[in-house]
């Protein structure tokens, strides 16, 4: 190769915001050869998407390239005009996005949308474009492609939409494909099929790919080279085996440590957390005779006749942590809401402390004496906090309503105590949610849930919206809280590695039914059911050996 396909040289991008100019990229240099796959990893705000958008010239009005050069096939496209870019976009370089359903036009059939791209770059009749679109849908392995041509995006699943998006992006055989978090929000098995498809297509057609992701495992598994970005800078780049096997930059080290793998433990996630992590002995793991929560034959039928939860039974001892895993639609969140009495079930019993709390309707449960015993931590920490409540008000609310703390001095003492236990500095208590970071909001959400001293904490994907390094700290915190207080956890997550670390027992759900349950360690090393095996196999991981093996495989296949 004489010349790289794409070079980015000392790229600086600033955004004008209400608080003045913000420098999103502070001099990024990258290059990519034809046919190569480059991963860009980093946490939110690291500038990885901004880099991609600069290449495609898709920055919104507020963003401006202030310095540097982007060269594509030897052509300077840093400040290319529309007339120069339009023939390139889609034909020579194209992009697929996060949230595939929103990325497709909702009121146009997918066949027409693919045809639109084809006809933008080639002189084709409508009939020819349709025939070619059909071929493309076949290429991205969509079942019944003929029928799907006339489907609208809302009639397809998320994974299907992403395949359509891929079909559009590769329609004109571009030399470069930029994939911006292409599988975020998809189930782990869907993620695997979509990523395998992308890898296969780019390898077969000799396309270069830039894979932008926050998931180190994904980058390690599918990329020949990975660049790590932090705060607008590339801090380290190398082949995955050495990058993840022997990271040199402190940020990479932290990132690698924080990413859960099949071997990591809660303590191994955090390298240099500010808070001390005394390995306090666990409150005895011996299961007491009396179960705290006994769910038997639980059924939830929705209005449209769909059985979201279908005859599920399990129990949970005091101080125990039980994981619920499964893909979207498996009923895990529904179960968590049924147990919290936020939703009424159709049949079965929910025994708590020997009493059937299922008899109390979800409407009246707030008056029940059990309300303070069962609390929930939600997935979206931003949306689940009242925007007009300060952190103090959020935590004080359950204390006032459920614990009946009236005296203001006592209230402040207890709120500060809660904040201290979740590691939230007291000076943040007067801030409002929009003034807090994601991790701090998560801490407020947890403090609010434990404020009334519950005995069962339901955690509904508590770290799904957080960056890995923040996730590591929060998981650490949750684990410590359980050890200190003997809380029982019902832990709902789609991240199997997280569940393995956090829970002693795990239940695998599929279509509202339990397919497998057992001690987490055994379940993850030696799953009995096909479904659980499939789920576990689909987790991207960055074992150095596996990554190299995969590359060799890809090389021979190509």
């Amino acid at each position, binding site marked *: 190769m004489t010349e790289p396909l794409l070079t980015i040289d000392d790229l600086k991008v600033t955004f004008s915001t209400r608080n003045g100019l913000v420098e999103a990229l502070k001099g990024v240099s990258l290059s990519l050869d034809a046919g190569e796959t480059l991963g860009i990893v980093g946490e939110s705000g690291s500038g990885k998407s901004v880099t991609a958008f600069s290449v495609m010239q898709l920055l919104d009005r507020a963003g401006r390239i202030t310095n540097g050069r982007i060269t594509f096939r030897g052509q300077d496209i840093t400040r290319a005009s529309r007339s120069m*870019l339009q023939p390139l976009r*889609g034909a020579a370089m194209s992009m697929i996005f996060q949230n595939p359903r929103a*990325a*497709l*036009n909702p*009121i146009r059939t997918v066949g027409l949308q693919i045809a639109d*791209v084809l006809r*933008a770059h080639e002189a084709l009749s409508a009939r020819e474009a349709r025939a070619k679109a059909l071929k493309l849908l076949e290429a991205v392995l969509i079942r019944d492609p003929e029928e799907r041509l006339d489907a609208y995006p809302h009639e397809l699943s998320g994974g299907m939409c992403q395949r359509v998006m891929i079909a559009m992006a590769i329609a004109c055989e571009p030399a470069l494909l930029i994939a911006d978090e292409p599988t975020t929000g998809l189930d782990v098995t869907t993620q695997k099929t979509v990523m395998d498809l992308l890898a296969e297509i780019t390898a077969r057609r000799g396309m270069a790919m830039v894979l932008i992701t926050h998931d180190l495992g994904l980058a390690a598994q599918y990329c020949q080279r990975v660049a790590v970005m932090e705060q607008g800078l590339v801090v380290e780049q190398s082949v995955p085996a050495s990058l993840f096997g022997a990271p040199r930059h402190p940020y990479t080290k932290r990132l690698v440590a924080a990413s859960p793998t099949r071997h990591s433990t809660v303590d191994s996630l955090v390298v240099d957390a500010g808070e001390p992590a005394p390995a306090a002995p666990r409150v005895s793991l011996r299961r007491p005779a009396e179960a705290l929560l006994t769910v038997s034959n639980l059924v939830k039928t929705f209005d449209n006749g769909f059985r979201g939860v279908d005859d599920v039974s399990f129990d949970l001892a005091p101080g125990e942590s039980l994981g619920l895993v499964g893909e979207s639609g498996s009923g895990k969140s529904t179960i968590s809401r049924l147990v919290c009495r936020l939703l009424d079930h159709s049949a079965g019993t929910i025994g708590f402390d020997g009493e059937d709390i299922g008899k109390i309707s979800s409407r009246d449960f707030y008056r029940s004496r059990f309300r303070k015993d069962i609390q929930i931590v939600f997935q979206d920490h931003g949306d689940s906090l009242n925007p007009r409540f300060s952190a103090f008000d959020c935590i004080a609310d359950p204390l006032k309503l459920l614990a009946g703390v009236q005296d203001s001095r006592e209230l402040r003492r207890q709120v500060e105590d809660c904040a201290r236990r979740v590691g939230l500095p007291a000076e943040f208590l007067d801030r409002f949610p929009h003034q807090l970071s994601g991790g701090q909001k998560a801490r407020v959400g947890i403090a609010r849930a434990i404020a009334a001293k519950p005995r069962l904490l339901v955690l509904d994907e508590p770290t799904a919206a957080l960056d890995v390094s923040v996730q590591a700290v929060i998981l650490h915190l949750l684990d410590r809280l359980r050890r200190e207080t003997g809380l029982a956890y019902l832990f709902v997550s789609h991240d199997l590695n997280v569940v393995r670390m956090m829970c002693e027992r795990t239940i695998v759900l599929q279509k509202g039914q339990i397919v497998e349950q057992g001690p987490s360690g055994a379940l993850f090393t030696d799953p009995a059911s096909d479904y659980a095996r499939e789920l576990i196999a689909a987790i991207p991981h960055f074992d150095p050996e596996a990554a190299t093996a995969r590359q060799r495989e890809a090389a021979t296949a190509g």
Partner: protein
Amino acid sequence: MSLAASIARRAGRRALSSVPALFGVIVFTFLLMRVLPGDPAVFFASGPNAGQAEIQMIREQMGLDKPIPQQLLLYLKDIATGNLGRSMNTGQPVVTDLINRLPASLELTFTALLFALSLALPLGILAALRPNSLIDHGVRFLCSLGVCVPTFVSGLLLIYAFYYILGIAPDPTGRLDVFAAQPPVVSGFILIDAALAGEWESWRAAASQLVLPAATMALFVLAPLARMTRAAMLAVMTSDFVRTGEALGLSRRRVVLVYALRNALLPVITIMGIVFSTMLGANVLVEKVFSWPGVASYALDALLTSDYAPVQGFVLLMAFIFVLVNLTIDVLYGLADPRVSIE
């Protein structure tokens, strides 16, 4: 395929559910007219010195001597048989009057809506593509002007400018110049009738009569349409699928007109329905200023003389049209947005 069936089902359901509303409107107007001060019998007696006996006779003739519930039942029975009563002003059955005058109002409203849309859509799009530019501010100014100047003022200004000063427009007296030949009535819409009969001279005369009143009304409803188009376009232009279109190299024209505009039109369709219904009822001032023989001015005249039957007939007609417009909007929406019909 099943799209048509699903739209038909939705439309049918909507039509059925509007029956109670229509009934409510009938009863409400009926009672309202009875509550209003003034005795129609006195008003329609032959003269100021008509005797008590004569007034009593008229009252009996009109059925006003019966108790109100009975009057209501009689009225409902009449409506069911298609009899809306007789207008005391014109001496004609109300149904006949309305049939004669409705096309005039509809022709005016449709033309005005067409004017408004053909101006509002491009303006809204331009304003959205360059927010806070000179064009955007210009459109905002025009819209504010359209809303805050009452129709009778803008109508009179237009007459003053185009008829009195410039002399381009014909005199504002009704639908057709007195010297132009009246085409045979087929649909009641003069433009259509003249075109059918091939009388282009009359067509041109009718069209030139129509331009000023239609423009007056169009100016009035320009604001909601243009502002809604602008807001919807602004939202859609920042959406993910427009970015996709850009990223895959679609032409600017295609991105704006096919990807953005068609999505942005969805809320505009809703507003259009509201605007149309409002215009039909609210154009009484325009009809008065331009001596337009429409239903609104007919109803106003009737109201001023306590002529019950035409007012009730008018309200009923408006309610009916409102239901019809909503149905049409529903169907249009179902066609425009595939996501609606599955729900």
